[in-house]
């Protein structure tokens, strides 16, 4: 991490007289122990959060956002996130693209013949989205305080009834019936532990190689039949393919649907 790159970013955290838009404001502070700069990024829930934070921080009018300035700040922030190897979510990049588009549209001269009212501010849509987003942030805060009050309220503990404690409502005979069923089931079940032998493709290749080398030739059918499980069969098949690909063995078949024989290929 380069320190120089951080210096020009400096999202001043101490000036935040407005409501906190995000969980925490970003800050750069020296770490006393390691003598390194520590960068704390705000808990921005998304691009709208970040944008709101930048707007509030600069104390600009939300209805008259200086798009060029805010876009620059937004992009600098994104760079910082990337430099810190934070995964920048796609949402942030989409917003960056929208800001840049907005910036270029602001640069275009207005239609001089259009009536004053007809000229729509290209920023209007973004402003509406930001305001809408902020409303819901406030609503979330309201829910949070309601939940806090609610957690301070207690209702009585559960009353034990047959309904919420059904196992007590069972008679001795019910219990016996269940017990007999369990006994009967136990008789039927013959338990046997089977240890699963896992053969890897590499192991199987080695086995096949050795078999072909020692015998000179090998009936592939017989080789497959040795497989103990479906999985092993697949592994065996793969290892045959692999050795053919590596040109270590060749496969021959004398007649259609006849037996297939594997032979070692002599490295000429």
């Amino acid at each position, binding site marked *: 991490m380069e320190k120089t790159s951080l210096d020009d970013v400096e999202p001043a955290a101490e000036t935040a007289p407005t409501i906190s838009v995000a969980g925490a404001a970003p800050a750069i502070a020296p770490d006393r122990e390691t003598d390194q700069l520590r960068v704390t990024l705000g808990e921005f829930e998304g691009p709208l959060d970040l944008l709101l934070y930048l707007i509030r921080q600069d104390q600009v009018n939300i209805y008259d956002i200086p798009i060029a300035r805010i876009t620059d700040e937004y992009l600098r922030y994104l760079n910082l996130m990337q430099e810190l190897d934070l995964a920048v979510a796609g949402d942030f990049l989409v917003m960056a693209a929208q800001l840049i588009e907005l910036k270029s549209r602001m640069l275009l001269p207005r239609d001089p013949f259009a009536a004053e009212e007809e000229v729509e501010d290209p920023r209007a849509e973004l402003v509406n989205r930001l305001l809408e987003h902020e409303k819901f942030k406030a*609503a979330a805060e309201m829910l949070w305080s309601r939940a806090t009050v609610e957690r301070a309220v207690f209702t*009585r503990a559960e009353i034990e009834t047959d309904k919420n404690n059904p196992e007590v409502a069972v008679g001795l005979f019910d219990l016996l019936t269940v017990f007999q069923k369990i006994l009967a089931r136990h008789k039927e079940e013959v338990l046997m532990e089977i240890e699963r032998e896992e053969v890897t493709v590499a192991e199987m290749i080695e086995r096949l190689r050795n078999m072909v080398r020692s015998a000179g030739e090998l009936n592939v059918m017989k080789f497959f039949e040795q497989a103990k499980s479906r999985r092993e069969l697949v592994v065996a098949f793969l290892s045959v393919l692999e050795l053919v690909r590596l040109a270590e063995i060749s496969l021959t078949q004398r007649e259609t649907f006849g037996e297939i024989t594997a032979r070692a290929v002599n490295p000429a």
Partner: protein
Amino acid sequence: MSEQARAAKEAEADLAEIVESDDIEGTREISPTELKAIAEALIFVADDPLDPKAIARVLRVDQSAVDDAIRSLVEEYSSRSSGLQLREIAGGWQISTRPEHHEHVRAYLKSKPSAKLSLASLETLAVIAYKQPVTVPEILEIRGVQSPSAIKTLLDKRLIVAKGRKETVGRPMMYGTSKEFLIQFGLKDLSELPSIEDFQDLAGDVTNE
């Protein structure tokens, strides 16, 4: 002995009839004082906020009588500064402690405040509460960020429920808040939520040039 058993059986049958009967017409003679006491008892034993209709049905009295009884109960609770309160929540009535005594109650129960929802979950919940029924893309539009884990958390906590599919491209699932939401946030019904437009002023005010 058998006489007693028969009487007990008859009483049980009577009770079953009362509970099962759905007609509210046949008003029984229960004095207002008695009704108040019984209503209080039923609200106390009910697991969830108790609907006054259920009380009226069980007791075979008019619902207006039950409403009167509950109203006078609420007055009694507050006039004697009781440690308990009778509140209307999620379309029913519930007896609970008062929030101002939470420290002492917690100290006795040795309980800590339960886990809070994350900011992301709360925001998602706010959008769903105000815009319901609402689809995931619509939530994304307002929050500007995907919220799959928040939605899963809210579903796990049963604060939101699926409310069918929207008849549009891809038929996305729509979500809305549940009864559990009303209970956990101490709301009578959704109309008790402050209007979303009230938050606009709050948001707009901070803007100064």
